[in-house]
């Protein structure tokens, strides 16, 4: 079904492309928001992805690879967005200085907060790798193809990225040394 739509869209059938875009946009938007951490940037990236997909669709040699090709276009658009904004933006990382006692519910919230912070600290390439593999459930060889890197590089980068995420959680879980007020350490 999808291949038929791709074939028709390749021949310039706009309705067929609209159907393909409607089926893909939810996933593309979610992945872009995860990679870019900004809804507006994600919207721009997805728009760019789908416009490029329409423009370059006749050059796609194998319609069966449409999804992988689309993910690759999304990744490129996201990286382009990051580069575009990197020239105009300074990021300021705010670290909380108070550590209140936490019950279980708030501990989960804190974990999520740490995940959020750790994920945001990763570069866009590493986030894309995680999103394609852990969120879109693409097998690692497909991820490597989408990112345009060798499989071995994809594996090692994914390992490093997840290690960084775990380290962010571990750092938060580390027991803190409390000092009584007025007492020397």
């Amino acid at each position, binding site marked *: 079904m999808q291949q038929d739509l791709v074939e028709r869209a*390749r021949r*310039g059938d*706009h309705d067929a*492309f*609209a159907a393909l*875009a*409607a089926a893909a*946009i*939810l996933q593309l*938007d*979610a*992945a872009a*928001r*995860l990679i870019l951490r900004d809804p507006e940037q994600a*919207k721009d990236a*997805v*728009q760019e992805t*789908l*416009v490029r997909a*329409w*423009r*370059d*669709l*006749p*050059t*796609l*040699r*194998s319609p069966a*690879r449409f999804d*992988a090709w689309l993910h*690759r276009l999304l990744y*490129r658009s996201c990286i382009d967005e990051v580069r575009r904004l990197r020239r105009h933006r300074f990021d300021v990382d705010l670290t909380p200085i108070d550590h209140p006692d936490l019950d279980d519910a708030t501990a989960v919230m804190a*974990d*999520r907060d740490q*995940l*959020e912070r750790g994920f945001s600290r990763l570069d866009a390439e590493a986030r894309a790798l*995680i*999103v394609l593999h*852990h*969120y879109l459930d693409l097998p690692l060889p497909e991820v*490597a*193809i989408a*990112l*345009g*890197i*060798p499989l071995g590089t994809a594996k090692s980068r994914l390992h490093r990225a*997840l290690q960084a*995420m*775990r380290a962010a*959680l571990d750092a938060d879980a580390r027991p803190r040394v409390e000092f009584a007020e007025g007492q020397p350490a």
Partner: protein
Amino acid sequence: MTAHDDFNAMFSDWLDDQAGRGAPDYLDEILVRTIRTRQRPAWSSLERWLPVQLTFSGRLAPIPRLAWIMVVLAMLVLAAAALLVVGVGQRRLPHFGAAANGQIAFVDGGNLKVAAADGTNSSTLTVLPDGAERFDLRARRHPVRLPDDGIRPGDRRHQRRRLEPDRRRPRGGDRDRRSVRLVAGQPPTHLHDRHRG
């Protein structure tokens, strides 16, 4: 359940939460843009012509801009070097027309002689009979006699006329009926000396 599994489960949940559920509302905007966008012809992409393994693995994509600049510069240098080599190695054009065989015929006194284009290796082809003093240079092998126009043999003015173009057309003999002419702008040195000097 290991800590590793815990982390993976928590991370996947977190990714799902972050991704959200709402359908984006900008699809129409995109489709309007695509209507205004022309599709690229299939042949205009490298991916259409190169092997899939090469293009789809993205090995072409991450080449940095500096590398492309270096490649272009290297190609320019190579092209310049090739032009230089070709220019230096350029040889003179080979002789053409009547001089194609590398020899020029001329009248020396009563003899029909041939010499190399530079005037060397002069040799007598034949001794001319009386009154056969005007020849087409192309008629080296078969000298053609022209009707007597009253010019005495050995007359230097006549010798000069012999080398001027299209003054008189020879009759018979020369198949293409071309008249006497200078082949390379100047006759061989010794010819010049004898007949003009």
